[in-house]
């Protein structure tokens, strides 16, 4: 483990109606860790992960702020619906920052477990501001109420190595790995403006760490410019009522209906469970929407070679 640069202990907030009621501010430059209250005003006016992200980003920056200014912030939030286990898709984390590609605020989002685990750890949003001198990682333990900023110079840089290493490091055993999520970028993001962020989750069936991408806007470039190597959150104890919903019966009823529809219809419709969004390839090709030749054309006569059936028959096991 790297040298601990800063530690912070807190009492994890109890979730009430989808909100922890607090957000976390971390400055990796001057090693400040602070708590902020999530106000009723924020919930009313800026509801949702992206809303909270933009609210905090607006407070953080000025009209002079560029993507590589220290005050540019990467803000991550899952919103009040994040972490409802009955609805697949509520694992999303929304991310905002000022983009190196467009020089204006952008948003991107990813699956993985980070957003919900962050909330259950007591934080509705995480702001990462400042620039570290050397590579650092941030670790949040939502059960113990402990946060630290660590020197991360000795850690691998690329996600496929980093995610595995950090998941193993912070898990007590194999079963504990599902309780950990890592946000990381990779060495390419040191050089290219469109570097992205990877959000991990542990797949106990494949016994490996998998990743979802917040790919838009060059968030990974900002992450690496801040010399952040990884953000890690850990929380154990998720159930269907951890978000403290107002009406768990309605949530269960609609959740089951939703799963039943997927079970009955998905194979006949989009086959999302088999092939994911690759099911759209031939439709996009037909309607001139398939980005080809670096977006110069919207389709290609050879598109059939990457049709969903090719993946299903030749690559999926």
């Amino acid at each position, binding site marked *: 483990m790297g040298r601990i640069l800063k530690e912070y202990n807190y009492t994890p907030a109890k979730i009430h109606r989808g909100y922890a009621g607090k957000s976390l501010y971390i400055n990796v430059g001057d090693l400040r860790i602070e708590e902020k209250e999530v106000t009723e005003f924020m919930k009313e006016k800026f509801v949702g992960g992206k809303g909270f992200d933009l609210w905090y980003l607006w407070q953080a920056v000025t009209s002079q702020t560029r993507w590589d200014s220290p005050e540019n912030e990467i803000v991550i939030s899952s919103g009040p619906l994040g972490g409802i286990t*009955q609805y697949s898709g509520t694992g999303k984390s929304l991310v905002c920052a000022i983009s190196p590609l467009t020089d204006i605020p952008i948003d991107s989002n990813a699956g993985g477990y980070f957003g919900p685990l962050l909330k259950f750890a007591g934080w509705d949003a995480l702001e990462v501001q400042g620039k570290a001198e050397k590579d650092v990682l941030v670790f949040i333990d939502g059960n113990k109420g402990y946060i630290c900023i660590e020197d991360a110079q000795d850690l691998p840089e690329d996600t496929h190595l980093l995610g595995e290493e950090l998941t193993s490091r912070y898990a007590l055993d194999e079963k504990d790995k599902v309780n950990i999520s890592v946000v990381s970028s990779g060495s390419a993001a040191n050089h290219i403006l469109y570097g992205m962020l990877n959000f991990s989750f542990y797949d*106990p*069936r494949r016994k490996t760490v998998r990743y979802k991408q917040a790919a838009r806007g060059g968030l990974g470039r900002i992450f690496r410019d801040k010399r952040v190597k990884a953000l890690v959150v850990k929380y154990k104890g998720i*159930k*269907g009522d951890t978000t403290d919903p107002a009406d768990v019966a309605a949530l269960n009823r609609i959740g089951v209906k939703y*799963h*039943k529809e*997927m*079970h009955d219809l998905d194979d006949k419709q989009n086959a999302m469970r088999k092939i994911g969004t690759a099911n759209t390839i031939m439709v996009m090709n037909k309607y001139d929407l398939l980005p080809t030749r670096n977006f110069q054309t919207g389709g290609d006569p050879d598109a059939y070679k990457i049709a969903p059936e090719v993946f299903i028959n030749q690559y999926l096991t």
Partner: protein
Amino acid sequence: MKLLHHYQEICTGCRACEVACSNAYFKTDDRNKSAIRIFNNDNTFHAVKCTQCGECINMCTAHAIYRDKNGVVRIDKKLCVGCLGCVGFCSEMAMFYSDDLTEPFKCIACGICVKACPEGALEILVSKA
């Protein structure tokens, strides 16, 4: 493999099995907490209960459902996150949930209902497969 079998032609629809099941596992006389449910189709009684097919094992992303050494499909409550995906994905509609509980429940072929059935319409079948 252990499997609960229901003899439709013998069943009178008294629902003693539902009462026995919910009492045994949830200490309540509530058919919504029974892992066997009897339905009346024109005076023919049809039982919904787990066939131990294991379709739910594959769909559980939390890896909380497994087959035990008797071939019975079981839920590890510690690993279950209560998504209820298995409830929606059960082709037999035999994975049940209750809003009072944080995990779903199912028939584990324990045989309590077999003893409770006054007509002998239920039996635990044991096969080697």
